[in-house]
């Protein structure tokens, strides 16, 4: 599934879509954490319409579980990553990250140059 991110300044990133299908609007922010993606999904400080961008590869590879939630539901509107793992491998994993995000209708945009996106956001907003 093809997916596109368009920013208000005209920059466009094209990549692969996972999770829910559709169109989502919001403010694009980034987080450079190497791990803890589930905590980022469910952090209520993302309560405005945010699309969180993570440049670290292999987001999703340890799945999700009920104990690591920061809140009862995810607060991001979308997820933008370099590489998204559709398989999970961890003894604590209860649900694959893609299923978890799809359950809450959160789209994933992957396989874009997320480092370029982060630098762009850092410099221009």
């Amino acid at each position: 599934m093809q997916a596109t991110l368009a920013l208000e300044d005209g920059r466009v990133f094209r990549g692969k879509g996972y999770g829910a299908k559709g169109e989502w609007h919001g403010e694009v922010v980034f987080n450079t954490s190497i791990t803890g993606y589930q905590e980022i999904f469910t952090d209520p400080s993302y309560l405005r319409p945010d699309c969180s961008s993570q440049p670290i590869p292999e987001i999703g590879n340890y799945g999700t579980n009920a104990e690591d939630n920061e809140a009862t539901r995810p607060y991001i509107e979308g997820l933008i990553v370099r590489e998204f793992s559709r398989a999970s491998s961890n003894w604590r994993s209860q649900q694959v990250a893609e299923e978890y995000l799809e359950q809450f209708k959160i789209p994933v945009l992957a396989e874009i140059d997320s480092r370029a996106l982060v630098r762009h956001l850092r410099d221009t907003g």
Partner: protein
Amino acid sequence: MRGVVSTLETDSDKLVAKARSIPRWMELTSRKSSAPRVLRLGNWRAFSSADEVVGVKDEPARFHVVAYRLRHQAEHSAQTTWRRLQGHGSSGADSGGRRAGAEADGVFLSNGPGDPQPWHLCGGQHSRVSWGASRFRDLPGHRYRDCSGGKTFKLRFWTSWRNHPVKQLHSEERSRRTP
């Protein structure tokens, strides 16, 4: 920066136009007559209810953020700060802060930087104290300070058990707002 993620539309011009049409995240509006002042968060959510608004004025509205962890006793502490900023009381606020407080039309109550829980999750009760100003609650205070032009950033260490500390860039003042 505002943006659109789409798996349906591939025309980049249309998507960019949509991104530009997204309302900015924070927009403070006031409707005339008896309607409450509304704080809009983009097109997603508005915090306001009639019982929280004491007085309604025409725009522009100026608000002052009082960032405290809003638990039972802390609201009294926050009110003390607010009254001090308005010129009541003797010490604690610098002249700039006091001027800002005096000019403000209302107050944002925040549960503090780094702790952006909704009001009902942080044990908030209805206020028993009179603020004498329009109040909005349920706020991630650092975000509002940032949006309103305040230059603060999170410090990397020195968290302890309290709220994450912030530093004001102009004064180098470090503060942990949790009493």
